């Protein structure tokens, strides 16, 4: 009997000690781990869409509350702010369109303080290789640079300034839709960043 109690007590104590140490390590490394994920997963596209800056946009982030999703969880949007001499010069944020040929297309858009697009980069998509995935190429996505009005970011067929990719109209349209969303979101993003 005494043996049994001793076994239970020792094992419980070891497990409790382990839980304590692990929860502490988890908390202590949390911000650093989040930063690493941002840097290596979203970092390359953030840097690709921003113009000139002298800070680390991956660290200067502003989070905007975007309301709730279908399941009632709150959605946050992360804005990466590029600064020069301490003043915000442009910002990058993600938008998406679920009207791609094979599901959702996520894009990162860089916009300067005037609302002009500095760059667009496709972060995740599952479009057809060799056709729809041409949306990743600069030939297509650089057409958005310098645009300011959401009307202009439409495809040329819909009265905009963007030439769609031959054979991948749906993919092109989805990217354009996501850019339009980004431009429409801009006034709110700017307000939050300038605060």
């Amino acid at each position, binding site marked *: 009997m005494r043996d049994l109690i001793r076994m239970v007590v020792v*094992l419980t104590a070891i497990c409790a000690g382990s839980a304590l140490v692990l929860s502490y390590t988890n908390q202590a490394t949390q911000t650093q781990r989040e930063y*690493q*994920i941002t840097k*290596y997963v979203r970092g390359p596209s953030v840097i690709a869409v921003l113009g000139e800056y002298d800070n680390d946009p991956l660290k200067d982030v502003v989070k905007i509350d975007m309301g709730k999703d279908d399941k009632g969880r709150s959605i946050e949007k992360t804005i990466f702010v590029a600064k020069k001499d301490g003043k915000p010069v442009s910002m990058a944020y993600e938008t998406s369109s679920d009207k791609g040929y094979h599901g959702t297309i996520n894009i990162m858009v860089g916009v300067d303080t005037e609302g002009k697009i500095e760059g667009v980069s496709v972060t995740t998509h599952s479009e057809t290789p060799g056709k729809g995935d041409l949306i990743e190429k600069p030939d297509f996505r650089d057409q958005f640079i310098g645009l300011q009005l959401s009307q202009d970011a439409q495809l040329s067929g819909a009265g905009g300034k963007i030439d769609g990719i031959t054979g991948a109209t749906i993919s092109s349209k989805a990217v354009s839709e996501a850019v339009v969303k980004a431009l429409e979101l801009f006034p709110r993003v700017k307000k939050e960043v300038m605060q």
Partner: protein
Amino acid sequence: MSVFKEFTKGLWNEIPPFRLVLGLCPVLAVTTAAKNGLGMGLATTFVLVCANLLISLLRNLIPRKVRIAAFIVVIASFVVIVELLMQAYFYPLFKVLGIFIPLIVVNCIILGRAEAFASKHKVIPSVADGLGMGIGFTLSLTFLGGIREIIGSGTLFGHSIMWDSFEPFSIMVQAPGAFICLGLILALMNWISVKQKRKEIS
């Protein structure tokens, strides 16, 4: 003297993957490049030393009947700590090693050393044993990774070292290359020790 002996036995006489032929899963899987082998080896060394230290400290407290469960909890905790730290500070390496970091828990070298050594010896020899075994493991993984990287992609630690017209044997960085390379190293090591023994006899 004996502490030193516990340390050095892991470096040649009982070098884990080549002599004890233990812990082969990470040895074969992650050694596609010297850097990956080194990273894996260092992570394992950390777990090995910490687990040996703690288990040796607790060896008189842990009842024999639940010792394996207790050892595994201790080892798993250290593995999770390593995993979190790697994710926070060495993210690219963490990505490359992937599932093999959590799998350090079931690496039989660690449980083996805890059971066979740390649970029966004092703290300092246990740490020396863990350190020796860990460094031996790290050296083996780096060596194997280095050979595979040189032949399989013509680089070492990411630096190009072969002549320009060198055509990499890409089989060496794939799974069969690991087996071929390990087999050749084992053969070489056995050949060397047989030769040494003959010298001693004659």
